[in-house]
């Protein structure tokens, strides 16, 4: 098991954002973490990499206890977070962004070639200042930058946020291709339809707790998921329109 989280609790000040969440990700899997805005998904991810100090519970990456470690350590645990809202280095060139991503990787120039093969667009634009890329290209850069560290576990936070529908498709196709590269992915998303298509398994989070877990195919047909995230009504629903 690559990632194991047990009873994780964390939050901000007195506000508890994650209330005892447990989940696991096996090597080679793509696991989705679904939930509405404010369900605590991002806080959970932040706690996994150390950007947020967990209050209690344990985080094990490849068997090693990592909770409480500073964020910059997580890369040496072969775990890289692609943060929400991309957070690329807007004033640096595409190439420099990638090289920073390979900060701990001595073969960063070789790795950059591999990233360019995966994202030919980035090679074309390597000299360009990253802030001038389109939203989709910036997301590609954020993912490419994370791959520069040769992670075993990639944590993606809302990669489809703010992208045009066509771009969303492309990003999800890229995530699906991570499997070929042997990268394990924990994907945090609000876009349930697309996530359940690429993921092997998924968890559903609500108000800081994991309320549902299962194979992606099963979850896609689960009444709760259908109602809350896929915009469909239950068959056994009384026919009255539900209030959103």
């Amino acid at each position: 098991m690559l990632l194991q989280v047990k009873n994780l609790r964390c939050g901000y000040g007195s506000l508890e954002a994650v209330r005892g969440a447990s989940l696991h990700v096996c090597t080679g899997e793509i696991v989705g973490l679904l939930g509405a805005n404010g369900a605590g998904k991002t806080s959970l991810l932040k706690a996994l990499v150390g950007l947020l100090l967990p209050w209690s519970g344990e985080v094990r990456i490849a068997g090693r206890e990592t909770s409480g470690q500073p964020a910059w350590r997580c890369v040496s645990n072969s775990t890289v977070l692609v943060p929400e809202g991309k957070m690329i280095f807007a004033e640096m060139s595409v190439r420099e962004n990638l090289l920073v991503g390979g900060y701990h990787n001595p073969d960063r120039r070789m790795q950059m070639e591999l990233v360019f093969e995966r994202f030919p667009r980035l090679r074309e634009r390597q000299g360009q200042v990253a802030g001038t890329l389109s939203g989709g290209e910036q997301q590609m850069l954020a993912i490419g930058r994370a791959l520069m560290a040769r992670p075993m576990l990639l944590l993606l936070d809302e990669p489809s946020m703010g992208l045009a529908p066509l771009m969303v498709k492309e990003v999800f196709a890229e995530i699906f291709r991570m499997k070929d590269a042997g990268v394990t992915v924990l994907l945090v998303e609000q876009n349930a339809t697309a996530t359940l298509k690429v993921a092997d398994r998924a968890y559903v989070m609500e108000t800081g707790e994991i309320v549902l877990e299962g194979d992606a195919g099963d979850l896609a047909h689960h009444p709760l998921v259908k109602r809350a995230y896929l915009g469909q009504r239950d068959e056994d629903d009384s026919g009255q329109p539900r209030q959103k």
Partner: protein
Amino acid sequence: MKRLSTGIWADKGGIRSSVEDEGGTIAGRLRGLVPVIGFAMAVPLLHLVLRVAGTEYCLTQLTMAAYYAIVVTGLGLLMGYAGQVSLGHGAFFALGGYTTAVLTTHDFSKWKAATGWLQEAHIMVARQDLYGNQLVTVTPWAAFFAAMAVAMIAGCLIGYPALRLRGHYLAMATLGFGLIVAKLLVGSNLTGAADGLNGVPEWILMPGLVVSGKVPVRVQNYYLACGLLLVVLVLLRNTVQSRVGRALKSIHDGEKAANSMGINTAAYKLKVFLLSAALAAAAGVFFTHYTAGIGPSEAGALKSLRYVALAAAGGMSNLWGVAIVSLALNYFSLRGWFGTYDNAVFGALLILIISLAPAGPLQPAAAWLRRRGWWRNAQSSHHGTP
């Protein structure tokens, strides 16, 4: 503070994306040498001009300005690349200078038991002061290392807690530090109170090379100071164009994201702060030997603010610009061009830079020249950005 955070400290577009990094092309590397060669040629040229004009005495102020420029260049690294502001670099300069001044002028002959072996180890030396009194003092080399140690310890004590927090805590902490150091220097007899210290001996770096303000070695000291400035610039340039430099730029650009990339941002900021404090202290040591003394005004808040103004005026991350602007303006100031408005000039400069040209005046000027086709920036051809 809001204006500042979007203004000069954020330094929009001020960071130069150096495409020619470790694996840069040969042409890129040669281009990088242009300022080095230009600087190395300008120094003797300026000397020649002053000699022909019969105003060789101006070299004294140029030498002093070059030492100040080392302080400002180090501050430019801190502000332009780590995105932190120090309002206490004058205090680090003074800490270096005063430590040297105290150790090399204070008479330690009372401590007979200890001074014996210290003299054997060449850490202390028996000499005569200006009035022929017999003294036992610390040698300049030993005092230099002691001064650096004092500055580094002070830097750690301030930087370690302040840099773990996000925001402008370093600016506040260093401002307080500067005020405390200035008060201590004025209030203590050991540091000569308001008079400061004088009679600091010359510093023989090696046979034939001496840091001293005496007229026969004026030319030599001018080249020494400019040479040191050039060495600092080349070292910092190499630092900035490496993996370390990329890490620094990424911290400036987005600290959380840099952290997620595995960069220990707190440690980096502390290292850069210590490096720039060390440069300030070292410049203070050289300056003190050169002028044979130091006064408490060197630690004043106005002096520190002047360094910040100069770093901003030079464009912060543009270290060459910082060095040249600070060399020129400090020279004019030392020659008394600004008269009684001396401090006001630097205050006004800072206000003008923040409100009109947050990325430094050199950048808009270069853009203007480029638009007119008079000067082609090598970097613009690389990115094709506006």
